[in-house]
């Protein structure tokens, strides 16, 4: 009986780790359609909940986020600063991620080792009354810079150019690798 339980838990852990690794590869291979990006809205857009998956597209002078029938937009010329960053997150997140922490023999912790790289895009803009807003999106790796270029072409402003940001990220990555 004990052996059977052990075998089942090993199977569950391995089975749940499989989509994590294959998902990473799939996401890196995914290329954005012309002008549209698959993103996760972290915070900031009015009428959109936190951590909502959706797509954003640059249409005329508006950055439009859509998730199902719900849409929300930000005027591109009102953007005062657009910044990208690099981060990572647990490959298996959400409810399944939390539930997996209950898996026996440290299975949940084992799954935490599988992480995927993400880009972050932070937008600062002012509304018609002059009020400051911040919007944060996460995107698949290396798509943040592409989206930023589109926004800058549409009239958005930035305090750090795309090239400088890429250089900074490379340097911080090197510094992290150097640390023992």
């Amino acid at each position: 009986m004990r052996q059977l339980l052990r075998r089942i838990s090993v199977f569950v852990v391995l089975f749940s780790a499989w989509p994590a690794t294959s998902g990473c590869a799939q996401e890196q291979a995914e290329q954005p359609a012309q002008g549209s990006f698959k993103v996760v809205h972290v915070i900031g857009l009015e009428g959109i909940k936190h951590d909502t998956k959706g797509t954003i597209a640059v249409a005329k002078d508006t950055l439009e986020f859509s998730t199902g029938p719900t849409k929300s937009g930000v005027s591109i010329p009102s953007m005062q600063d657009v910044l990208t960053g690099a981060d990572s997150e647990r490959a298996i997140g959400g409810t399944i991620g939390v539930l997996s922490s209950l898996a026996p023999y440290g299975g949940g912790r084992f799954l935490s080792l599988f992480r995927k790289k993400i880009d972050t895009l932070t937008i600062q803009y002012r509304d018609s009354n002059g009020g400051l807003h911040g919007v944060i999106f996460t995107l698949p790796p290396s798509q943040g810079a592409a989206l930023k270029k589109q926004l800058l072409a549409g009239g958005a402003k930035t305090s750090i150019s795309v090239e400088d940001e890429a250089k900074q990220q490379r340097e911080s990555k090197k510094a992290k690798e150097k640390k023992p």
Partner: protein
Amino acid sequence: MRRVPVTTIFVFSLIASLLADGLPLRAQSQPQKAATPQASGSLKASAIQIQQIQANEVKLSAEFQMALYENVIEEVSKTNKFEHVYRDGDRNAADASDLVILHSTVTGFKQGSGMARQVTTVAGATDIKVHLQFTDKNGKSLLERDVDGRVRFFGENLRATYDFGKKVAGVVRQNFTMASRASQ
């Protein structure tokens, strides 16, 4: 020696981890008291303007800075202590009669590691320390507090900004009374 059943070990470790996770979280939710002591709910204002988070001495990434700002606005709005919650730069705030302005300055930031946190549960905590100052329109200080946002167990690093927002809302609940209610 008698062997302990695997299921018993699992149940005990589950209870232990839940207790370990729950206790510090409860401790975290208590906002830190500092500087000027105020009687509970002694301040009254009909509107608050939340200024952008300043991080002059501390290197803080843009996403953390904006997430702190947005979470504070969201959580302070939920307290229902003010008729209006104005954003930084909002021109309408100038017309508000008894306006309180919240200035926040980041004094410390330790970026943890999500992986270290989830694998070890004792390492990799993210911690943001912020000094809050509530002033009136003329800049006179009404209340000062030091608050920190943490993420120790579950969630990615940005979750510390949500924790910070909740604690700022706690400070507001503790120290402010809605102007209309106070006059009754």
